[in-house]
């Protein structure tokens, strides 16, 4: 897998855009930004294969904000749509019925509801079959398109429409976020990475690097969701940056199963600084603070990084628990 890169600074971000401005998505949508950057790296010859979610409504007949192909499938089976499209193109080219110049990159775009929950089986199937495709999960940690219900990506302490914080359930969601990165790694995908739109160069390089691998190239993008998380849309990048700086959203990759963190905060900011920016965590601070819940979150972040530090020999200066 290639280790050279054409992306040194943000100025190296390709200028060409393939997604039109003024689409129907929410202001400050992290998922839309991730698609835009992803597309810049992969270039024009591309087909998005979409699972039901926020991105589905961006292409609404007779309008499409894309210069590339779009196929909406269903909630559970976008990876199978990618399989059929990839196989269809391959067999037509093999039979000489389709010119190689008509070939394109097949990219699944799905929210966390599809990636972590209802589409987990079809994703696992595509990975196990070694399908040559890209997979972009814009992870806003809940079912955003239907109004923010919990998914198995929803972190401990977040409220959602189906895990509201009440007097009897003061912490909101108390389940643990599913570790999709590790689940995919167990399936032996050649390239897996996490992304944050706030760390553009890291993002660009990972899409570039994954592209040199044959087989499933899987990405989980931390997609800030102003509508669901409850913050000013202009703060999207700041909120994502805080998630990275506090260690709540680790930036990493797995090349042939070997995990490496691609960014380690110089000094970890306390996780409460990140939590405070969003209404989904407001119940941890108001009307009374819930220090035990905040401490639980901080501990899980610290435990994660202590383990990563031990495994990779990283020097980490963790925040106080």
């Amino acid at each position: 897998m290639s280790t050279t890169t054409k992306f040194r600074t943000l100025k190296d971000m390709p200028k060409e855009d393939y997604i039109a401005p003024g689409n129907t998505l929410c202001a400050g949508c992290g998922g839309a930004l991730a698609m835009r950057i992803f597309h810049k790296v992969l270039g024009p010859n591309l087909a998005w294969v979409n699972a039901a979610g926020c991105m589905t409504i961006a292409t609404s007949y007779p309008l499409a904000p894309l210069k590339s192909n779009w196929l909406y499938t269903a909630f559970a089976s976008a990876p199978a749509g990618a399989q059929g499209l990839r196989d269809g193109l391959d067999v037509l080219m093999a039979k000489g019925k389709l010119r190689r110049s008509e070939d394109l990159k097949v990219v699944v775009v799905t929210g966390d509801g599809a990636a972590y929950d209802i589409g987990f089986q079809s994703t696992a199937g595509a990975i196990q079959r070694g399908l040559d495709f890209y997979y972009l999960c814009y992870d806003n940690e809940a079912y955003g398109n239907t109004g923010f219900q919990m998914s198995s990506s929803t972190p401990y302490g977040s409220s959602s429409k189906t895990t509201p914080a009440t007097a009897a359930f003061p912490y909101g969601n108390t389940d643990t976020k599913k570790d999709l990165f590790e689940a995919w790694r167990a399936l032996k995908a050649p390239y897996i990475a996490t992304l944050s739109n706030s760390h553009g160069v890291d993002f660009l390089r990972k899409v570039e690097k994954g592209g040199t691998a044959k087989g499933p190239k899987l990405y989980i993008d931390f997609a800030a969701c102003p509508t669901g998380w409850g913050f000013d849309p202009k703060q999207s990048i700041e909120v994502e940056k805080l998630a990275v700086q506090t260690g709540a959203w680790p930036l990493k990759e797995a090349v042939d199963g070997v995990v490496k963190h691609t960014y380690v905060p110089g000094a970890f900011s306390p996780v409460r600084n990140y939590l405070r920016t969003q209404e989904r965590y407001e119940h941890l601070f108001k009307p009374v603070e819930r220090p035990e819940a905040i401490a639980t979150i901080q501990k899980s972040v610290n435990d994660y990084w202590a383990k990563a530090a031990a495994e990779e020999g990283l020097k980490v200066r963790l925040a106080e628990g």
Partner: protein
Amino acid sequence: MKPELMTGNRAAASAARLARVDYVPAYPITPQTEIIETIAYWVREGTMDSKFVQLESEHSMMTAAGAASLAGARVFTATSSQGLLYAMEMLYNVSGWRAPMVLANVSRALAAPIVLEPDHNDVLAARDSGFLQFHSETCQEVADLVLLAYRVAEDRRVMLPAIVNLDGFYLSFTREKVVLPEQAEVDVFLPPYDPPHPIRATSPVAKGSAVMEGHLYSYFRYNMHAAALRAKEVFNEAARDYQGHFGRAYGPVDGYRLEDADYVLTMSNSFTTLGRQAVNRMREQGVKAGLLKLRMVRPFPSEEVAALLRGRKAAAVFDQNLSPGMGGVFYPEVAASLYHLKDRPETLLPVVGGLGGKQLTADEMCKVFETMRAVGKGAAKPDPMFLMRADELARAKKALATAGVQG
């Protein structure tokens, strides 16, 4: 070609190979599995030039099938029963994509309770999906209908996917005499698929776009309905061509001894053969009996049904399916086809039988004719018949007793 003995499953696989399908996404389920096993073997031994991929579910299988069709490939797949229902969400999507693939459904009754033998609740659950439906009585028909289905589905006037139905066990695992067409002739009858707007690098398209308003949704659904209705004439055209090439004639329906028939039994699929025997027996007894077989189920051949049932004294609709709380699925479709006719049969007898592959005998079918004759003139609605022989009921009661059910 010389006749060969082959199962319905092998006939379906053979027709897919003759159609030179490009892509076969698959998932096993009894009694369909022999179809995909056969194709998998042919692909691996190099006697079938297709890509075969086994998916992790029927839902994914149908998604892959539709997507490959949108890429411009000719696609074949097969399923059965629970598998068809597991894929059901995607049937509606694939038809909405106007992706003209062909699916062989090997009918098997639906759980619960789980059973392996056929009835038509599985394929009729797909009745409203936008797939065209052609139902087979014999293994020969399976092969012929698969080839015809591609011609109709891929016609620019239609552009809809199609199901070819065959009964599990009675056709799937039963060897019958089948004459397979010559490849060279098939190539003339069925040229390569020429997709109208495939997914391509140089001419991007959006498929499956959302429509956020009802008027647009209605427009596209009406459009699909109009295409499905056109499929009947396209089928008739293709069938004439097919007869010219291969000698076998097919229409949307088949009549048997209808010329002077007073009493007509309407039915579909493999048990129709038993219906024909019953007609012959009734004729021997001097009863003017006849049979109407439904081959095309979607679009529903209303005009043909009306033309062949009008003026009869009585007709029965044999449904090998059950919509609990209503009755058979075909009955209201036949009734709706006749309602506007002044000379419709005075009696339209609903009959339900053969559920879960329950054996039928010509005796039972003769009983249906006798009941048709016995229903008095002017009866508003005859009581529906639910076929169960006394010996079968006794066996069912014995099983209940073994299970400890009292009384």
